């Protein structure tokens, strides 16, 4: 990333090539107490590749992957999890969603039923931080995977390495109270890395979007950006039609969306592409 800050552009490096850098960071940090290694997306993947060796040396006690990229881009049928399932560790138990610690997470989302917070958010790291702290205090956290991917399908639920399962695949997008947004490109094709599932509700543009980055602009891609567009549409709607209920918005988001993919709602595009003009004019 340092290269992008200095103005040069190149595709992201292969995760394997970053292993020495990650190990170098662990060596340079040498904290006095316990160390958990991890990162976001590709960063967490690199950490997962060095975790076993560092754990064996007693250098780390845990691994925290936020938004682990379970699938290579555009290849949802492939998984990048063989090494995760093989991670060695001491005895431990698999923690499933719905058990004690996840209860508070569910509670936090349950309290956010108001319109302002009803629209979509990406895997919300802030919601998970408390669970990580609980698991750390209980001495249970070793591998925590938050965000995308299917733990059951990846075989992680049976991994020898203790797994702190903070939330199952698709959460928090899959919570009933959440309007889950997927992303499309300029030709209305689904973003290749986007997760599919019964919780996908509506689509909005999210591929190669121009966004302010480091004082200039850059192209960004992600369901996060599509979610922001739906959030903005709902905010606009609240302005031009004050008083409409969250239920009305949800129903009409679905009714006015432009159908994409298979006819009707499907697990790729949900009800289809957001159509703000039709939504604002809906009766």
């Amino acid at each position, binding site marked *: 990333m340092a290269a992008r*800050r200095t103005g040069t552009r190149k595709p992201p490096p292969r995760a394997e090539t970053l292993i020495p850098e990650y190990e170098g960071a662990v060596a340079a940090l040498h904290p006095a107490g316990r160390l958990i290694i991890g990162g976001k997306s590709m*960063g967490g993947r690199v950490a997962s590749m060095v975790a076993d060796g560092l754990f064996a040396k007693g250098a780390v006690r845990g691994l925290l992957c936020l938004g682990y990229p379970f699938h290579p881009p555009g290849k949802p049928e492939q998984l990048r999890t063989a090494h995760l399932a093989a991670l060695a560790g001491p005895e431990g138990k698999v923690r499933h969603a719905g058990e004690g610690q996840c209860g508070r997470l569910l509670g936090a989302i349950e309290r956010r039923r108001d319109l302002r917070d009803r629209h979509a958010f990406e895997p919300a*790291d802030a919601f998970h931080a408390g669970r990580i702290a609980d698991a750390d205090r209980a001495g249970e956290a070793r591998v925590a995977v938050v965000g995308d991917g299917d733990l059951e399908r990846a075989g992680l639920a049976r991994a020898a390495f203790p797994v702190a399962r903070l939330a199952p695949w698709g959460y928090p997008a899959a919570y009933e109270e959440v309007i889950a947004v997927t992303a499309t490109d300029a030709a209305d094709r689904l973003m290749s890395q986007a997760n599919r599932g019964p919780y996908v509700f509506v689509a909005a543009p999210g591929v190669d979007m121009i966004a302010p980055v480091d004082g200039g602009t850059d192209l960004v891609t992600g369901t996060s950006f599509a979610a922001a567009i739906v959030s903005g549409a709902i905010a606009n709607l609240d302005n031009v039609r004050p008083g409409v209920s969250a239920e009305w918005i949800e129903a009409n988001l679905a009714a006015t969306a432009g159908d994409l993919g298979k006819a009707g709602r499907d697990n790729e595009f949900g009800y289809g592409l957001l159509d703000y003009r039709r939504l604002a004019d809906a009766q």
Partner: protein
Amino acid sequence: MDFLFDGPPEASTTILLAHGAGAPMDSASMNAAAAALAAEGFRVARFEFS
């Protein structure tokens, strides 16, 4: 190596976080994760791949 620290220096557990592809260590999601973990009492150290 330059680290970006959050949370109490005396914390018993430090979490080392690397960024995702195409995003800096101080992207919005990294800031949110670091702030949330720091608020739980962790010391968080972030670094950037070269």
